[in-house]
């Protein structure tokens, strides 16, 4: 498509959203993917929404929903001379209760940023005298890769690779959000990458049980606008169907092989979501046959309690109950250079996205 045609297409999609929303009641649409938060802002789509359509950011940033206790355990491990921490970049700057991996690295801790779980395996092979601990966080997008890494390490008889389990499962979180009494969510923009693994059909039970429409959406502006248009039309017509607007990557059934891998290595476990408390079956623990890969057992550490810095409202932000600007710390004590909570540190956190792309006053 030529640039001019592409622009015209975008303008039509924006009009389509406005048309669909005209005369409809006020509605709140939640996206549950950190990348969506950032893309909606970065592309300017968020600025194009009609006044009665509110886009709220839910708990879609895996770093933001990782409890403080997990971060503290990671920092404790980083301090050990025999440990190399392998982590996704986002985790490095997140403050735990009193420390961060970035600060630990400044004091000489071995903290390596990796792009995938397989890099952690390579690191372990290349450093036979040290223990590599991979910080396994993320939703279903990254979990299969961690499972594959564990399977590979097992097959290779690697004795020095461990994971600190922190993966989360999306559906229980959506249920928790919708079953809350004061839930004001009218529909979901479903995360594109997670849906590649789960499949569009995975959202049907939620749509049916709670009567909320769900549309799977990608990350290009045109696709996001298309998806928002479909969602607005459904809400206006009181429908509750699951639609897939990201058919180029997402199928009805998703990636069964990836799910099988997850299932082979992990089992559901109750897990602490930062500032949301413990949600049953929302996390993943290593199955007994892979238990030796759990860094907690190997090093004798536990996840500490969650900790909410005074005044921090990250929990309410990630549940979509408030916008970042409602938090008293936003832009004052809490900014990207001096973050209090993970929503500001993570590049996909809601507060970081707001601060970066939207803040108009200081």
């Amino acid at each position, binding site marked *: 498509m030529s640039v001019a045609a592409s622009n015209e297409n975008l303008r039509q999609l924006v009009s389509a959203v406005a048309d669909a929303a005209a005369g409809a009641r006020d509605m709140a649409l939640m996206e549950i993917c950190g990348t969506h938060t950032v893309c909606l802002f*970065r592309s300017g789509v968020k600025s194009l929404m009609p006044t009665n359509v509110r886009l709220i950011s839910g708990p879609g940033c895996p770093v933001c929903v990782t409890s403080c206790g997990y971060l503290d355990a990671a920092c404790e491990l980083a301090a050990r001379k025999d440990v190399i921490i392998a982590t996704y970049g986002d985790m490095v700057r997140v403050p735990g209760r009193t420390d961060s991996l970035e600060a630990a690295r400044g004091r000489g801790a071995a903290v390596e940023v990796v792009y995938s779980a397989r890099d952690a395996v390579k690191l372990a092979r290349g450093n036979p005298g040290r223990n590599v601990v991979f910080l396994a966080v993320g939703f279903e997008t*990254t979990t299969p890769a961690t499972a594959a890494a564990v399977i590979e390490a097992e097959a290779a008889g690697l004795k020095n690779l461990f994971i600190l389990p922190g993966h989360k499962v999306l559906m229980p979180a959506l249920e928790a959000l919708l079953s809350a009494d004061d839930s004001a969510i009218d529909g979901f923009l479903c995360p594109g990458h997670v849906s590649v693994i789960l499949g569009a059909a995975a959202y049907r039970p939620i749509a049916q049980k709670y009567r909320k429409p769900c549309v799977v959406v990608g990350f290009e502006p045109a696709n996001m606008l298309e998806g928002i248009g479909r969602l607005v039309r459904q809400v206006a017509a009181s429908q509750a169907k699951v639609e897939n607007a990201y058919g180029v990557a997402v199928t009805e059934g998703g990636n069964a092989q990836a799910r099988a891998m997850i299932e082979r290595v992990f089992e559901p476990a109750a897990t602490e979501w930062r500032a949301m408390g413990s949600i049953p079956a929302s996390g993943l623990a290593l199955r007994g046959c892979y238990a030796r890969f759990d860094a907690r057992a190997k090093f004798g550490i536990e996840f500490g309690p969650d900790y909410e810095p005074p005044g921090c409202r990250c929990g309410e932000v990630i549940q979509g109950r408030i916008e970042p600007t409602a938090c008293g710390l936003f832009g004052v004590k809490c900014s990207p250079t001096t973050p209090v909570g993970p929503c500001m540190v993570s590049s996909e956190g809601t507060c970081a996205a707001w601060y970066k792309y939207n803040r108009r006053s200081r």
Partner: protein
Amino acid sequence: MNDNNPAADEPGVTRAGRIVLAHGGGGELTRRLLAERILPKLANDLLAPLADSAVIDPPPGRLCMTTDAFVVQPLEFAGGDIGRLAVCGTVNDLAVMGAKPLALSLALVLEEGLDLDVLDRVMDSIAAAAAEAGVVVATGDTKVVEYHGAGGMTITTAGIAALPADMPPDAKTITAGDAVLVSGMIAEHGLAVMTARKGLGIRTTLVSDVAPLGGLVNAMLAAGGRVKFMRDPTRGGLAGLLTDLSEQIGRNIEIDEQAVPLSPAARHASELLGLDPLTVANEGKVVAVVAAADAEKVLAACRSHPLGRAAVIVGRIGQASDWPLVELLTAAGGRRIVQRPYGEELPRIC
């Protein structure tokens, strides 16, 4: 990450050998290193006396001076290396002042274990870049530090230049409606360096744009238009530069996303890595603010130069404001604020 000192024997080690601590001791090994591998490549009249300081006849008028340190990893990447970067980075800081570079100083800090073949290649690059930029290395220093796995080499430079009476451009004359010009495709250097890092496994055609900008700047100034501001968008990228500028002049700046020149390869690499191309470093680009009436003329002059073929007007200077913002008109027709990046850009999690 490997604790082993590469100065120890290793299969595949080059014929030339490696730097050892004694190379920095000031004795025979130092003399030989300089005489065989460093000085011949830099030969020029200012350097020739090899005195403790270089003697330079000052030009009439004012002098411009800049300093820079180079710690890039890896040392070699598509399109350049730390040597080329050191020369171009230094002369470009002088060029965007409208000054004519005269001489550079070159301080090398080599790490024990550095492959001498790498040193040779870097010195060749320095020589070539200096010739290309029309500048000489007048004085230098070489030290060796113990092995710490710190990457092999760092370079510190200083540069001096003659500043014409009507330079540097006066940003105080910038007013609403002035055009913001970018001399070509952005983000290439930063992405070329990132993708060259081991372990990423990304193959790309991206090549660093590192180049000396003196010729391009001269062409732009020779067009006879009112150029009110020039800078090269290095660390922090276009976003960092424009944010700094908007704060300096107390005015909003509006940029059209679709006008920003970005190659498909750079767009894709940024998306893969989760980076905003506006925040990625450039080492061969100029950003200029030009009076509205002269914009086309300066743009044409820029495009007439080999380094400026893809030059574009990307936006306009806006109204004065107590809280100046840089705003992007997005391809989707929306708006968002551009801010300087927060330092180390971290790869996305999923």
